[in-house]
Each structure stands twice: as structure tokens, then as C-alpha cells.
């Protein structure tokens, strides 16, 4: 080996990142950029060339910019992806429409994007150029080398349509501004967002729609691309509000966006749209109702602090206490418009459903319980079970001493229509629930089923002065793997008047282990 040679390990992951970064940067020419293998990019520049002064000018600018960034690359333009591929790889800068056959004919077989086996086979029978293959009768070749050969030829010549698969979905609407002088300050970017949003407004008005997801793309001079997306609870058109949302988002990201030498292209795209309900304003000049202000406020918090920063509790039909209320992102009182379902809780958010081990799989992998679309109210009744003896009403001594088999398990009682009365019989539920039940050490619990006489929770001893219960809550056997145990809940009050919700998991005398006790909530 040559002593001066420099050896670097191949790093496919880094190569991949690089090509993806280049693809991001190529977004400035067209929204439709596709990766091609490990070392190529497809750009669908249909309808984009006039912005750059024609195909040739676009190609020249692209090559010049890449050259200044230190990349040496070949590019080709043609009216089909197959021909463009060949043009780029075999240094024909542009193939005019209709000239494909003529341009491709002298090229060797690799220009047809064939696999090596087929190529070797063709070469072994003396067909060494694309032109030779095209002039040979098709049927024998197709029988011997498969249909792919002629599919590739037809694609290259434009007889068969070939779609490219862009990396990112093309936004329905996008406006951009190219800057002669790069900007780097947040104020300048926010001003630009305002200008772009004002341009966007006319387009949105023409379509009768409003934006639900907006993305701001910042192209840095040296090729790095930052994408900043904000979502809105209601379709949005107003440039001021769009500006406000991006103001919050940029304030939250201020330390994470590196402006470097500045951004020379700023694009505002609408990723999703929804029908915009127009309301007539009154003469007071206050066009925004209080409800709308509230939603804008929630949107701003979400833009700054993340999607799960403002939550609304919605009832879920389940008798398990931790599942009876689910937290979903707040989107106003009534969502009578088409919405996309809210994203599933990511990570350890505020969802207090996500921490129960037997339920984790199910509750994480799926979407939240309600979709608010189609004009329906959140439409689930909260389930709650309680034995009728102590459903928040009264505890009878007779029932305390009764055997545990006498309790009916899990009868939903919310809003049950009892004869003529429609009043819900609400069970006693704590006002605060721990996201995961905390184990406590219960002392001198009445066996088999009674409240403990005292318990230790967070290293503090509590003497139970009064207790009510048990309220038996069985696990949902139709979920999970059935390993959960039945819980008996007790309302207890300590000597200072704090009221807690405890439960015992499992039964005494069934199985080798002594049942464990947990603290689940706090009452008022």
C-alpha cells in the first residue's frame, strides 16, 4: 500500500444522512425530491423551471451551488425519470423531449438501470448498447431476460409512465421568499412569516379553506435546512395569528436553531387543510369571539411547549379508575369540523393511562379514545363500578361482614336510567389521581377484607380514623393478558382529616403471596 494513503471506514449511515441533507436542500427547487439508491436524487421539476429562468438556468444554478458547497456531481434533465437517470450518469446534461431514443442509443447497457445478471446475459449475446437492444425483436428477448428489460426501455422513452416517490408529501400550498441578503435574526424571520402568511391568505380564501398544519422551512446559506411545524386546533387564515404561533415556536426553539451565516430562502407551506367556516363579524371591531381566543391561546401553548402541554380530560367508558378519564389535547369546546385524529401519546406525557404495566402495550400503540370529528361530541360515558352497597352513599355493617362473593362486580352506574329518574348515581371518586399507584405498607388490615388500621405512605405513618369500603373493581378481562388482580378500594380518613383512596390488590388466602396495598388518589 501507499504509505501516504488515508483510510476511512465506510459509514453507510453517514452517507445516508448526507444524501438526505442534500435532498432537503434540493427542496428549494421543487417539493418533489426522491432518493435514488445510495448516491442519487430525483427532482421532479415539472412546473418549477420558470421560477429559475428555464431548465438550463436551473441546472446551472444547481450545479454552481453544489460546487460552492464542495460537491462534485453530475446532473441531467430529461422528460422521463429513466432518461434523466441515464443523462446524469453518462454526462449528457439535457435530453430534449422526443430525443430520448436517439440520445440513449449509443449508451452502454447500465444506462437502462438493469440488474447485473440481466446485463451480463445481454452482453453475452452481443447486445452491448441500448440501441442494439432496442433494434432487436422484443419477444425473444423478453422471454429470455424478463419483462423488466422492456419496461425500463419504455419508461426511459416515455411510453410507460414512471412515478418517482418523493420523500416528503408535497404541501397543498406553499409560499416562499428568496432573499438576496440572508437573514439571521428571529425578528426578521418573524416578519417574513407575516409577509408569507399574508400571501397565503388569498390562496386559502380562494379555496375556502384554512390551515391546520403549517410548516416553516428555513434554508441556510450553507445548505442546512430547518423545518418548524405548528398545528392549529381550528382552521386558520389570519396572518397575525399564524405569525403569533410561529413566534411562540421560534421562542421555544431559539437556542436550537443555528442561523449560521443566515437563511436565504424562507418557505411557508400548509401541510394540511380543512374547510374554513366563515363567520360574519360585527361592527364592534372585535372579530374574535372569546372561544376563538381560547383556542388560539391553547394553540400558542402547544406551539411553544409541545403538543401535550394543554390537555382536556374526557370520559372513557371503562370502570377502571385510571382509564375512566383520558387526557387528550385541548381543542376547544365543540369541534364541529373535520379533524385529523390526535396523535397517540408519545413517551411519558401527562397521560396517566400509560403507566400501568399490563395496559401499556395497548394504550401506547393505539390512538386516543376519541376522535372528535364529524360533529360529534365526545361521546363516551364514564364507566365506574361499585358494589351497590357502597356506591358513594353509605356503608352498612351488614355488608362489611358479608362474604366477598356476594358483591356484584363491575356494574356501570353512571347515568343509569333507573325507572323514571335520570339522575346519575355518582360513585365517590378522588379529585386527584396518581399517575401510577404508590405502594404503601398497610398495618393490621382486617382480614379477609377490611381497611387497614394504619399505613405508611411516603415514609409517614397515617392512622386510619374512619374508612368506607370495600368497593370492588375487577380488571378488564377483555384487555391485557389477564394477569391483573382484582382491587378492593377503600376510602379512608386519617386522624387529621386527610382523605385517601387506597386499594388492596388481590385477596388474602389465595395464592402464596400476601396482597399488596396501594395509594391511588386523594379526596377533597
Amino acid at each position, binding site marked *: 500500500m501507499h504509505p501516504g494513503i488515508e483510510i476511512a471506514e465506510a459509514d453507510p449511515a453517514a452517507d445516508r444522512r448526507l444524501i438526505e441533507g442534500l435532498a432537503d436542500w434540493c427542496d428549494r427547487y421543487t417539493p418533489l425530491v426522491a432518493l435514488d439508491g445510495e448516491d442519487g436524487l430525483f427532482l421532479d421539476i415539472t412546473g418549477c423551471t420558470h421560477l429559475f429562468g428555464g431548465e438550463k438556468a436551473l441546472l446551472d444554478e444547481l450545479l454552481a451551488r453544489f460546487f460552492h458547497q464542495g460537491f462534485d456531481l453530475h446532473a441531467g434533465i430529461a422528460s422521463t425519470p429513466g432518461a434523466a437517470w441515464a443523462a446524469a450518469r453518462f454526462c449528457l446534461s439535457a435530453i430534449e423531449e422526443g430525443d430520448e431514443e436517439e440520445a440513449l442509443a449509443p449508451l452502454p447497457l447500465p444506462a437502462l438501470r438493469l440488474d447485473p445478471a440481466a446485463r451480463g446475459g445481454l452482453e453475452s449475446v452481443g447486445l452491448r448498447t441500448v440501441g442494439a437492444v432496442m433494434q432487436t425483436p422484443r419477444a425473444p428477448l423478453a422471454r429470455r431476460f424478463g419483462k423488466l428489460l422492456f419496461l425500463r426501455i419504455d419508461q426511459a422513452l416515455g411510453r410507460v409512465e414512471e412515478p418517482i416517490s418523493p420523500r416528503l408529501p408535497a404541501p397543498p400550498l406553499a409560499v416562499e421568499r428568496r432573499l438576496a441578503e440572508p437573514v439571521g435574526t428571529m425578528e426578521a424571520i418573524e416578519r417574513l412569516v407575516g409577509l408569507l402568511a399574508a400571501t397565503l391568505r388569498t390562496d386559502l380564501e380562494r379555496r375556502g379553506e384554512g390551515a391546520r398544519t403549517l410548516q416553516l422551512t428555513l434554508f441556510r446559506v450553507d445548505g442546512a435546512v430547518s423545518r418548524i411545524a405548528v398545528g392549529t386546533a381550528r382552521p386558520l387564515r389570519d396572518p397575525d395569528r399564524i405569525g403569533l404561533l410561529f413566534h411562540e415556536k421560534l421562542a421555544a426553539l431559539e437556542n436550537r436553531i443555528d442561523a449560521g451565516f443566515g437563511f436565504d430562502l424562507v418557505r411557508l407551506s400548509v401541510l394540511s387543510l380543512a374547510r374554513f367556516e366563515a363567520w360574519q363579524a360585527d361592527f364592534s371591531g372585535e372579530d374574535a369571539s372569546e372561544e376563538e381566543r381560547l383556542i388560539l391561546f*391553547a394553540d400558542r*401553548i402547544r406551539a*411553544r*411547549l409541545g403538543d401535550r*402541554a*394543554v*390537555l*382536556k*380530560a*374526557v370520559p372513557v*367508558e*371503562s370502570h377502571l379508575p385510571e382509564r375512566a*378519564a*383520558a387526557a387528550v389535547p385541548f381543542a376547544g*369546546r365543540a369541534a364541529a369540523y373535520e379533524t385529523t385524529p390526535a396523535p397517540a401519546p408519545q413517551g411519558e406525557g401527562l397521560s396517566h393511562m400509560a403507566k400501568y404495566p399490563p395496559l401499556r402495550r395497548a394504550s401506547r400503540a*393505539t*390512538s386516543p*379514545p*376519541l*376522535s372528535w370529528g364529524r360533529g360529534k361530541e*365526545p*361521546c*363516551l*360515558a*364514564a364507566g365506574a363500578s361499585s*358494589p*351497590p352497597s357502597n*356506591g*358513594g352513599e*353509605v*356503608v*352498612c355493617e351488614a*355488608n362489611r361482614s358479608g362474604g366477598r362473593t356476594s358483591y356484584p362486580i363491575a*356494574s*356501570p*352506574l*353512571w*347515568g*343509569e336510567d*333507573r*325507572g323514571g*329518574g*335520570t*339522575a*346519575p*348515581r*355518582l360513585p365517590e*371518586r378522588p*379529585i*386527584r*389521581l396518581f399517575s401510577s399507584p404508590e405502594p404503601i405498607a398497610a398495618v393490621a388490615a382486617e382480614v379477609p377484607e377490611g381497611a387497614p388500621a394504619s399505613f405508611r405512605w411516603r415514609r*409517614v405513618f397515617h392512622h386510619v380514623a374512619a374508612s368506607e369500603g370495600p368497593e370492588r373493581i375487577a380488571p378488564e378481562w377483555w384487555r391485557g393478558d389477564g394477569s391483573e388482580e382484582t382491587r378492593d378500594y377503600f376510602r379512608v380518613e386519617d*386522624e*387529621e*382529616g*386527610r*382523605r385517601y383512596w387506597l386499594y388492596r390488590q388481590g385477596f388474602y388466602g389465595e395464592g402464596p403471596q400476601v396482597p399488596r396495598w396501594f395509594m391511588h*388518589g*386523594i379526596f*377533597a
Partner: protein
Amino acid sequence: MVSHAAARGTVFALRQKIAKIEGVLADRLAAPSNWPDDAGGILLRHDGQAVGRGGPPLLRTGAASLDAVLGGGLPRAGLIEIHGSQTRDAGAVAGFALALASLLLKERAAGPLLWIGTAGIFSETGFPYLPGLYARFGIGPDAFFFSGPDRLQDALWIAEEAARLKALAAIFLETGGTSRRLDLTATRRLHRRALQAGKPLFLLREAGLAEPTAAPLRLVVAPARARPRSTLAGPLVHSIGPPSFTIGIGKSRNAASGEFILEWDAAERGFRERRQEDHGTENIGAVVSASSDRPHPAPAARTLLAFPNVEPIGGKENAPHRQPSREQYKTHRSA
């Protein structure tokens, strides 16, 4: 109202003088005779301007002696500090604040409540739990939302932004311990904004020491032993009746102090003051359990008439005996 600045100054000075003679606060002087008599003759003034024209200026808790000591009731707008001495008392602190908000909502459903707490305090003292809020305070899913940012400064930012919104009925800001961020300046900003928006902002401080803040009123809440439930045969031993709170006044412009034991009556949706002679409670519940596993179950023992404007959770057509529809079934399963 006098508009000229100098004239206003004179009026202020005169009013202060009269207040001193009468021994009341200048901003709560008796209303002029042409003022609608809606608050027992008390007119609340702020910066010399009458406030609370839309309704009674003070929120009466319903406990007569507490109202008297507070000079007619709690202010309807501005910052109200509610302290708990230990983190364990978070149930009582939050319960008392929610009860006050429930009183507000009882008069007029003015909008949803926003509960802001840091993620730390929520994980330490528990997340707000909707079925409990609904059962005890009549706060339904549409009347309540909450936010739990990780850092206190984010929580403060949310509270400041929310304090301007007129659409909210009340705001709770819950913090644990003491923090330098929640100083006189920060609380004054909150107070002024809440005053301008005309709604209360409850600052719940779990395990907090009394620090100088801009709040005109600080209540110290501790739990109190609940009385046993009453039945026809007398109080039921070892049972737990309605939630009770011990309310102390930590700071008040009336400079009066006292300690009061209040009970929250969910059926009446109001506070009741507990006196020494009270033993049983009325209207608490059924004596015998209602049968539920029969074809025609007995009607519920009571109806919560005090929550008229709250729909049963889920709406009428979603009574629990009805199965979820086919479209909903998937979301039920996955919830």
C-alpha cells in the same frame, strides 16, 4: 365619575377619610343610594372606579362568619393565594379552590376552568381526576382543562397569558414549595391581569411558606375530620361524610383573623359552616343499598339538583347500558 385628575385625587382623599372614620376599607365603602343594591350595600372600588357592575362584587362562600371576617366575601377578580402547610394536604387545598370555582360556576357558567401545575407537583400530588371533579363539584369535561409544563417559568407564562382571557371562569396555578420566580413582581403581574379580566386566579401553594406576594388575600387551608354520614338511625359510625376544610386567614385587607371549619355540600353546591352542636349531616345518601341486579332497579336515592347546567357525562344517548356504536367501538377498545 369625576374625570379630572386633581378632582379625582380629592375624591380619593375624602373617601379615605370617610373610610377611616367608619372603620372600613376605602375600596369597600357603602354604595351610593342610586347604586343597585346587589351586595348588601357594599360597592367594590378599584383604583377609585367601581368594579363588578355586572354582578355582585364579592363571592359569598355561604359561611356567614367567614364572609363577615372577609368583609363580605372573597374578591371575584384578582389573585387569591391558598396555602397548604404540607404537600399531603394537596387534596384539601385543591378541593377548597375547586369548591370556590364551583360556586362561581353555579351562578353563571362563565367558561371553562384552567388548572396549571408543574409536572412535578402533578406527579407528586396526583393529576386532576375528572370523575371525582364531576361527582363532587359538578365540573364536567367541557368545563375543565389542565396544563402541566415541566418548568415553573413555563407554568407562569401560561398563567400570565391565560389571565388575560375573558373566556375562562377561573384559573388555578399550583406550585410546590417556595420559588424565587414567584416573587412580588410575578404575582403582581398575575394579579393585575386577573383584575383586568375580572376573574379569580387561585394560586395554590403546596407546602409553601408565607411569602410577600401581591395577592390581597391568603387563605391557609388544612383538612378537617369529616363528620360521619347521617342516617335515619343517627350518625353512621366510622363513615366519612362530606369533605371538610379548616380555613385560616393568613392575610387579608380587613386584618381580621380566625379559623373556620367549612363543609362542602355537593347536593346544595355550597359551603356550610360547621358548628360545635352539629353532629349528623342531612341529605347524604341512601340508608339501604339500591338493588342493581334486578330487572327494575329502584330509583336513585337523590338527585343532584344543584348541577343543573351539567350534562351527564357522555350525553343522554350514551347511557352506559347502551353499547358503543360500531364506529366508536374501536376507540373504546383502544382507550
